[in-house]
């Protein structure tokens, strides 16, 4: 990786006179970067393992509950959304404990933070954008589990339309 490519310099530098969207664009960029970093997008396969694992762990109980319900067919007291939360809250806790520090600490560890702070972005903007990214991912995780479970319960109910009406 030490090969030099000095001859390529002469292709030159272009000035930019397109739109500059300033602070709002900076906030969005930090937000989406936080989102992508956490999910391991744009990174190697290794970075995707942990998010996928945790995502799977949050999804599994929903699928299992839905399967139990459909197989036992009203024979037992049905587990539902509250039970799902009991099981999955521990996964959410672990997920949160892993991703939240990574969103803020990595930038300080690498020193990238000093590059953010010379750009059109205040410290508050930066933290808020990172927090929103964190919040969005947690929300996504929580709701996708719920939606899978709801879909499972509706499909396994003897009368899906009634189920929706009763449990809405």
């Amino acid at each position, binding site marked *: 990786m030490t090969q030099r490519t000095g001859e390529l310099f002469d292709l030159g530098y272009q000035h930019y006179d397109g739109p500059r969207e300033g602070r709002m664009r900076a906030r969005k960029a930090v937000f989406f970067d936080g989102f992508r970093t956490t999910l391991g997008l744009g990174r190697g396969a290794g970075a995707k393992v942990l998010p996928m694992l945790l995502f799977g762990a949050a999804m599994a109980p929903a699928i299992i509950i839905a399967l139990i319900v459909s197989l036992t067919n009203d024979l037992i007291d049905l587990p539902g959304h509250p039970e799902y939360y009991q099981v999955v809250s521990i996964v959410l806790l672990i997920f949160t404990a892993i991703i939240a520090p990574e969103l803020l600490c990595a*930038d300080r560890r690498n020193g990238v933070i000093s590059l953010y702070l010379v750009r059109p972005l205040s410290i508050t903007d930066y933290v808020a954008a990172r927090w929103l990214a964190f919040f969005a991912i947690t929300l996504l995780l929580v709701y996708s589990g719920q939606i899978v479970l709801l879909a499972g319960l509706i499909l396994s109910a003897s009368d899906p339309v009634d189920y929706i009406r009763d449990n809405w």
Partner: protein
Amino acid sequence: MPYESVDIRARLGYMPEHDCLPTAITASEFLTHMVQVSGIPPSQARTRAADILRHVGLEEERYCPIGQYSTGMKQRVKLAQSLAHDPVIVLLDEPTAGLDPSGREDMLRLIRRTGHEFGISIILSSHLMGDVESNCDRIIVLEGGHVTEQGAVSQFTQETETVLIDVDGNREELITALAARGVTAVSDGVSLAVELDSEEQYDAIRDALVETNARLRRMSPRRHQLTDIFRNEGP
């Protein structure tokens, strides 16, 4: 234009001395992101990132994770991120730190080009006086947070009225011959240093050289070097 610091920072570039790059993502990805944080929309950001990486001499490597880069390549990425959003002014903090001599020369050439051909004002902070002398137009000397001296580089390196003479043999005779003509020569390492008061003393030096038959190797005016700024301020 309101002089809010956020607005100003949109047109400012900064290359820190310390490490400031993530390791897991590629230079291309990182630059694209940084250009967006500077306020440039994603569609243009990608093009800017590609252009600037080519400008600093990273071609295929830009699709490798930054963690695999050599110091020289990292310095280039650092320079690239400071220039990518077309800033009006760029602050470079020790841009040649950790580079080998040829890498340093490449980096300085790149900085010179950026400053002179593309009209971006560059403030370079360095402790390498040679780099400053050969690449900068003006110098500001700071000490304890105060500007102690400033001016054009030539002002700091202007010629003094001292002539350095190197001879092969007959050195002592030359000193005596010069003294006889009223010229004081001081031994300065291998050279003789002569403080000139008038133009005629050049003739005296010539005559003394002819008389003593000393073989002349070098005769040149001594230039002040930038490092003298610091030497002079010593205790």
